[in-house]
């Protein structure tokens, strides 16, 4: 019964996401992969924020609250249906060419990996230290007490180890599952973690498919899904993979916005950036970087609309995350408090630490037991498809990845803990956050390798040329 309740909760999340997606892509026809990836991802981010806002008003997650959200979602669905504005599945998809059938081989590997992760996750309680000390602990707190007035536990320094100032997306989504089940069951509660973590793969696939044919896109997605570090952290109840998933969505739509300037892409970039910022503190940094890159490319292009895009991005980000930023500003910061340290003079005085950090990061990318040959492959594909650097969106993604890694290196340099120990424990997780950018870059560079890839898209291009000739 509890399992069914948890599944219904995930269904509700997907429904909320589908409605929002329909509002953004009004009446558009989307591929089945877009619908089945974006709906749960947008739904998860929105549900986490909804539960947070409700908690600020004094309501803890409960079945009644979820029922209310469900009824509102159904009403929204009916209204959109009557206005014929629901996003629909595109019935005519790209042709399956002879070689595309090979895509089932890596697809089976992806699904087998997913099944193993789900079985492992659901058959044990929270075991990862961060999962129960930070995220699971807060989920219990949130289902028990509303955030207004501020619960004493959030100001109790003996609980400093749980990083009282960490964002609450994952704890709220887990608390929602506990509320739906009517009990705190961390075996089944990990279903939420599995659901969020595994979305990373289709999210990256969406970005790869933008430029790549089906077979290479599935192969790269399979490489992502089979990374040992994914198996290490998927389904354990931590926030690293949800952050990577939201980050993947944000950088993909930032790149598409830079390339195409469609408002839907900008809205999705804002949403995913805001969700990332509410998932982990690192998310706020990458969200700001996304905005800066949009701004930078707007200035470079010298177009008014791109200025507007950057302004809209920052305004949207602030509007969505304002409640969190205001509520959390008085929470006791942990001894790490990277935000303050990165804004202090320590950044300059401890720059020499980079001599130790940068080589350690490079060595970590070569750690076969964590990454296989993933980073080497990404580098090789980038070299083979070097011409892709001429594309502004590829350049933008390189800048985003560079800023991301630089920010992490600087964070290490000001860390209060013993650096070698800290890097040993956290480096693979932090690089995991950057994996979506590396995977997308590998794919987008690969799309530029050789001329046959151009010919392979000839069907669609020919149709486009003929339409243009007809006009």
């Amino acid at each position, binding site marked *: 019964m509890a399992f069914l309740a948890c599944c219904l909760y995930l269904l509700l999340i997907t429904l909320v996401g589908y409605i929002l997606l329909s509002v953004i892509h009004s009446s558009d026809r989307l591929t089945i992969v877009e619908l089945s990836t974006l709906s749960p991802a947008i739904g998860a981010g929105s549900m986490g924020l909804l539960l947070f806002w409700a908690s600020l008003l004094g309501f803890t997650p409960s079945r009644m609250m979820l029922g209310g959200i469900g009824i509102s979602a159904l009403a929204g669905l009916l209204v959109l249906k009557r206005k014929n504005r629901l996003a629909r599945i595109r019935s005519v998809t790209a042709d399956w060419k002879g070689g595309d059938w090979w895509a089932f081989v890596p697809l089976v590997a992806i699904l087998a990996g997913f099944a193993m992760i789900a079985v492992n996750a659901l058959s044990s309680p929270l075991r990862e230290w961060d999962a129960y000390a930070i995220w699971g602990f807060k989920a219990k707190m949130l289902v028990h007490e509303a955030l207004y007035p501020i619960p004493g536990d959030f100001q109790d320094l003996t609980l400093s180890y749980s990083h009282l100032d960490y964002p609450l997306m994952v704890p709220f989504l887990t608390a929602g599952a506990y509320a739906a089940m009517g009990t705190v069951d961390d075996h089944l509660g990990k279903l939420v973690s599995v659901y969020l973590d595994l979305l990373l793969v289709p999210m990256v696939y969406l970005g790869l498919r933008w430029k790549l044919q089906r077979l290479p896109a599935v192969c790269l997605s399979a490489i992502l899904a089979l990374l040992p570090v994914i198996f290490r952290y998927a389904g354990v109840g931590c926030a690293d993979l949800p952050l990577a998933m939201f980050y993947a969505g944000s950088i993909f739509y930032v790149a598409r916005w830079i390339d195409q300037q469609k408002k839907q892409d900008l809205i999705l970039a804002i949403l995913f950036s805001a969700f990332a910022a509410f998932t982990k503190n690192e998310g706020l940094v990458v969200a700001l970087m996304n905005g800066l890159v949009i701004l930078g490319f707007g200035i470079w292009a010298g177009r008014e609309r791109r200025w507007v895009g950057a302004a809209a991005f920052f305004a949207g980000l602030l509007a969505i995350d304002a409640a969190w930023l205001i509520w959390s500003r008085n929470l006791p910061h942990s001894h790490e408090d990277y935000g303050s340290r990165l804004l202090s003079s320590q950044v300059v005085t401890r720059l020499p630490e980079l001599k130790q950090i940068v080589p350690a990061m490079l060595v970590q990318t070569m750690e076969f*037991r964590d990454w296989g040959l993933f980073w080497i492959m990404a580098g090789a594909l980038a070299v083979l498809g070097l011409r892709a650097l001429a594309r502004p969106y590829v350049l933008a993604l390189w800048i985003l990845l560079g800023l991301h890694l630089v920010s992490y290196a600087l964070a290490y340099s000001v860390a209060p803990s013993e650096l070698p120990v800290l890097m040993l424990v956290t480096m693979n997780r932090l690089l995991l956050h950057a994996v979506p950018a590396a995977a997308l870059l590998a794919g987008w560079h690969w799309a530029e390798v050789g001329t046959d890839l151009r010919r392979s898209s000839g069907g669609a*291009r020919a149709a486009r040329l003929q339409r243009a000739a007809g006009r």
Partner: protein
Amino acid sequence: LDEPDSDYYVGDDGSEATRQIGREEGLKPSRTKAQAASMNRGRQPSSRRNRGKREKILKKRTRMPAGGFRYLAWGIVLLVLAQLCWLQWQPESELRRGSAVTMKSTDGTTILGPEQVDRISVLAGSGNVALKLVGHAKTNPAYENILEYIYYRSNYALYPRRLYVAPVGRIIKDGRDIMGAQFDPTPQWLQAHGISSVVTVGNDDPGGTVRLNIQQLDPAGMPIDRTGDD
């Protein structure tokens, strides 16, 4: 599924690249620059945007045949895919390790499994719990990790009850802080904080196993009897 963005393969400026592909597909080669530009979502080529570099890079000739690069890229990707499958097949892989934990329900990373620590919440009664260190646990740094683990895990399992390892207000971020607190609460303190049990951790034998002892208290904060021992 979506087609890749077809514009990607069109020379942005109606250049030779565009016309060449058009000829390959049997289309009229008389496409004008303006028409080609209109296919690129109406954007005129902007020298300011790329300062001519983009076209230059796109038209750049390479010595190796393009098909060779393509096969090389495929070779790299398939090699990595095969290597990752092989890695997951290894006995020490994350996949196997996860499965082993699931099957055996033990945690190889700690001396005490979560189930054992979670017993504290069952044996501790209905109130809060205090942790006291005895013997070598007070000073031996080897105990730091285990103390940290017991504190984090027990607090999670006990919630909304609490495990106190230090006076309220003291910052506890790891096992060293727990040791440093030298927590030795008085019966009055125990009573005031609703403590119903005291867990003692430690061992007089420096090489011995970690011992957890749970003692229930009466409402006045005085020991009743010994109720659990691991």
